[in-house]
């Protein structure tokens, strides 16, 4: 079994009209045994920037701690929050530092940049950025997620529509993946509020 399939994960981020959604599954497993059904894969970096980390859970936790540390230092020096594009470059640099002994994680970064323009990005485990204008996926369910998002995505969706689309794409993809699932966690972020919702899914 690949090291990426040790814990199991599913992450997706989508762009809407002046908003974005980032969603993950909630299972934490050790190969085929489930050990937690409320695992948080998506963390807030600041009010308008969210980071999801798929892959090996221990590397995801360590990487998250390092990135929060760097962001806090940035806030102290610059007296402002990091822009999503800058944060993506930071994550890419930190991952490439470990080119020959990498963190076994695939990050998904989603944020609102200047003028509330949504920004999403994913990377492979050594920091190769992929900036997309529509959606990005990561995790063991990524192949199903690619297919689901490709067909369900529409341009310029309102926050409520975006929530429905992201939820349906996530739930239908994790249902086809043994290693991810047990519900969903969706964040829909607009310039004025963050809506966090927990989805009911198949518990198998």
């Amino acid at each position: 079994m690949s090291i990426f399939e040790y814990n199991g994960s599913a992450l997706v981020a989508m762009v809407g009209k002046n908003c974005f959604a980032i969603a993950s599954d909630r299972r934490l497993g050790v190969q085929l045994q489930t050990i937690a059904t409320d695992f948080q894969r998506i963390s807030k970096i600041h009010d308008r920037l969210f980071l999801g980390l798929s892959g090996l859970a221990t590397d995801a936790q360590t990487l998250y701690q390092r990135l929060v540390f760097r962001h806090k230092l940035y806030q102290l020096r610059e007296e402002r929050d990091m822009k999503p594009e800058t944060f993506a470059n930071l994550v890419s640099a930190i991952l490439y530092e470990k080119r020959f002994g990498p963190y076994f994680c695939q990050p998904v970064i989603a944020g609102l940049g200047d003028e509330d323009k949504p920004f999403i990005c994913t990377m492979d485990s050594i920091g190769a950025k992929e900036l997309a204008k529509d959606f990005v996926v990561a995790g063991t369910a990524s192949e199903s997620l690619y297919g689901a998002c490709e067909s369900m995505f529409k341009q310029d969706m309102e926050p409520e529509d975006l929530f429905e689309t992201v939820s349906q794409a996530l739930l239908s993809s994790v249902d086809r993946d043994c290693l991810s699932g047990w519900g969903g966690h969706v964040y829909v972020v607009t310039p004025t509020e963050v809506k966090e919702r927990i989805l009911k899914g198949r518990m198998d």
Partner: protein
Amino acid sequence: MLAKKGVNPPSFRKTGTTIVGLVFQYGVILGADTRATEGPIVCDKNCEKIHYMAPNIYCCGAGTAADTEAVTDMVSSQLQLHRYHTGRESRVVTALTLLKRHLFNYQGYVSAALVLGGVDVTGPHLHTIYPHGSTDTLPFATMGSGSLAAMAVFESKYKEGLTRNEGIKLVTEAICSGIFNDLGSGSNVDVCVITKGGKEYLRNHLQPNPRTYTNSKGYSFPKKTEVLLTKIIPLKEKVEIIEGGDAMEE
């Protein structure tokens, strides 16, 4: 060692690619496809493979995506520092030497195969750089998984002293040959024309693979997703602006 115990190493994102370059009458034309793959899956349908090195030098990259991006970014920064230091326009051979020294140092583990082209005071130059650090200087070059398909086009149709439009047409044909015949390359054609006067980056110059099958109605989900819990966090304004406040005391 890990592989023996049955742990397979992760598959990195590659740009299984077609990248080409040719020298024409007034300079250099570079071309690339725009597909990035992760194993057999296409992870990016429109990525950028022609990287900026200097205002007069561009570099196409094939191989592991993180390696090509990191090595071209690093050498681009080194070239800028060098420009500040010398006060002169960068030369293509400078970029070439910086890249090949770095790649040789890592003995091929930094998997970046590059086509470097540019125009400097000594004229137009085109080079290929292999992951182990060897280089070639050529009038026309191709790299990547689609290099054989593209080279077939170049070998039959290239001639010296091509005009700008002929050169762009030939580069586009070579990349298209890679896109349609090589499974690792696909999507659109990017072209970059570099001359003494300046550069012209034609992003998505040709889009021979548009998406024609989308249903205009799209998906609508009448049955709502079941939600267990909703938490709404309003984002407050960080700074309160007080109009006509008191003046600060000295």
